[in-house]
């Protein structure tokens, strides 16, 4: 493994890849700090840029944006009580209290250092677990794959919060949208309505830019701009000895929970930060301090969201199954280059896997260096008027969508999905399951057909294979819980 990692560092340390990792980290921190722009929108906008890059460079840059945003998100939470990123919502509780008590520096410092420790531990876990998991998944046949994808989609719905029923509607809609275009097995045109623009199907990048970029702009238009008042005067960004004594264990536990929750599809930064906060509050000797500026309440969730952002690469790199919208776009960046992530990825493209892993070690070091001393600079970003940011987002989305096929049709599709995405937000339908299902639909369909053909049409094949049966059992358990509670007339909202 050390040998592989060394060759990975050789890839990641090439000047261009270092530059891409640095660019991703800087951009990720910036959009993490800015509340109106998240990682999925940013990654969608940058996807067209990666077409001309080496695949490993594309992954390095996009991954940097993704985990970099977790560093930046805490800054806005701590200083302004506005979560810069969804994974930093819970950091507001104690982080902002610390700021009001004049301890902003310590909060920012522990968040950055905790993020660094958790991120690095996460990458270590990633490099240890992935090869084992991939090796195991090599034995998967179509039945196992079908059940695995089904489990992934179900968990993504159930764990991402909100109404599970609405998430399931979005999943099925995404599966259907994924069937538009030429059918992969027979080559028949499906749902193209005779339009040559749809023969290749809906372009994923175009849909994602609409659902995340344009929809975000539309929903931000609702509330007029509020000028942000930033109080400078952050004294020391280094936590005191007492802070350390209180924070080291929460950082370790946050890393642990974050890592394992992050592996689950739909788990990721949000749940892991909430879970680790709840755990710290529960086991603390002074739970009454939580919500009043307890440093544990910053250290644990900020460590957890970083560990989770790293470990959410595991299902992508070992099984080819993305667990959230941002990771799904990194999958697309690889597919554009003809690389289909799956259990063979580590063996067939070691440069991509180990290069990406090595770049994450480096990226976390860069982020620590970027975030601790330069925190004042990032805060200044908040003074950029939203109107300007919105225009830039719109222009990049328009140019990006147009560039896919040099056609106005794609711009229309993007705007259409932007408006649709805005309405979905307003009615409480999550967009992420739609995007995941759209990507995973073709895999699901192919494995379903292969399994059905091999079993001569007997659907029992999915329960006769023990592993497939186990995966389906878990999926059923996850899916049926909210439906049962619906039938009992209870709430469908998971906690």
């Amino acid at each position: 493994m050390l040998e592989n990692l060394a060759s990975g560092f050789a890839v990641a340390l090439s000047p261009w890849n270092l530059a891409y990792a640095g660019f991703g980290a800087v951009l990720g921190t910036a959009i993490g700090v800015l509340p109106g722009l998240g990682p999925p929108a940013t990654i969608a906008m940058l996807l067209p840029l990666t077409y001309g890059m080496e695949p490993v460079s594309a992954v390095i840059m996009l991954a940097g944006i993704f985990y970099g945003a977790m560093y930046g998100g805490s800054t806005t939470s701590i200083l302004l009580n506005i979560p810069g990123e969804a994974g930093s919502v819970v950091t507001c509780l104690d982080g902002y209290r610390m700021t009001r008590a004049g301890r902003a520096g310590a909060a920012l410092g522990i968040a950055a250092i905790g993020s660094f420790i958790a991120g690095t531990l996460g990458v270590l876990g990633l490099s240890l677990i992935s090869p084992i998991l991939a090796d195991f998944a090599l034995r998967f046949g179509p039945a196992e794959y079908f059940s695995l994808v089904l489990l992934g989609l179900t968990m993504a719905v159930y764990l991402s919060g909100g109404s599970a029923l609405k998430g399931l509607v979005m999943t099925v809609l995404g599966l259907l949208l994924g069937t538009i275009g030429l059918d992969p097995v027979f080559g028949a045109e499906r749902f193209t309505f005779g339009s040559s623009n749809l023969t290749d199907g809906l372009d994923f990048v175009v849909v994602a830019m609409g659902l995340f970029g344009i929809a975000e702009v539309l929903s931000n238009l609702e509330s007029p701009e509020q000028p942000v008042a930033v109080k400078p005067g952050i004294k020391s960004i280094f936590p005191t000895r007492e802070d350390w004594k209180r924070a080291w264990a929460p950082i370790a536990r946050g890393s642990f929970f974050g890592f394992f929750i992050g592996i689950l599809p739909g788990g990721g930064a949000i749940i892991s930060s909430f879970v680790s906060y709840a755990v710290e509050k529960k086991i603390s000797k002074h739970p009454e301090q939580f919500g009043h500026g307890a440093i544990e309440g910053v250290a644990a969730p900020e460590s957890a969201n970083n560990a989770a952002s790293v470990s959410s690469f595991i299902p992508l790199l070992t099984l080819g199954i993305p667990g959230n919208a941002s990771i799904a776009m990194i999958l697309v960046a690889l597919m554009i280059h003809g690389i289909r992530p799956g259990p063979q990825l580590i063996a067939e493209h070691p440069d991509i896997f180990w290069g990406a892993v090595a770049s994450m070690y480096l990226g976390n070091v860069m982020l620590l260096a970027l975030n601790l001393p330069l925190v004042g600079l990032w805060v200044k970003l908040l003074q950029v008027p939203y109107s300007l940011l919105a225009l830039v987002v719109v222009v990049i989305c328009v140019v990006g969508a147009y560039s896919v096929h040099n056609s106005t049709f794609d711009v229309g599709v993007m705007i259409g999905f932007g408006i649709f995405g805005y309405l979905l937000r307003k009615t409480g339908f999550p967009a992420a399951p739609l995007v995941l299902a759209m990507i995973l639909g073709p895999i699901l369909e192919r494995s379903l057909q292969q399994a059905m053909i091999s079993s001569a049409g007997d659907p029992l094949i999915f329960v006769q294979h023990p592993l497939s049966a186990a995966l389906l059992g878990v999926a059923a358990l996850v899916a049926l819980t909210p439906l049962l509670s619906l039938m009992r007339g209870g709430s469908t909202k998971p906690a």
Partner: protein
Amino acid sequence: MQHRGLKSGDLIAGGFFLLLGLGAIVGAVQLQIGTPSEPQPGFFPFLGGVGLVVLSSLLLVQDWRGQSSGGEPFVEVRRPLLATVGFVAFVVMLDPLGYVLATAALSVVLLLVLGVRLGLRSLLPAVLLSIGSYLLFDRMLDVPLPEGILGALFGH
């Protein structure tokens, strides 16, 4: 959270997805569903259509029982609506007007919607952004953008 707008939202969304599901089933049948042992192109869309019909029916039942299942209230409808009109007009006018003019017009509309007054403070950024992005993408990065009437004028 009980909110009048949200409940009718669930009703409309449920109805919309129900129709979409029925449409998918019809389309799938036309494509040939085949049998489980010999699935045809319509097989998978058929399952999806059935799934969508079932799930959206459940959503409608839930709404009928008066259980709202989340969503954000509309803070302001006018601004997103105006922006939406602007976006749609932009798509229609992109080819005839060309990228630069259409983008400048859209930027002005968005800035006005965002509360920037019509004048130098909205016109200047709009013009700079549209021309700047055109030069950056079309001229430097080789992303050909629609020329429109300006292209015709300058004889491209």
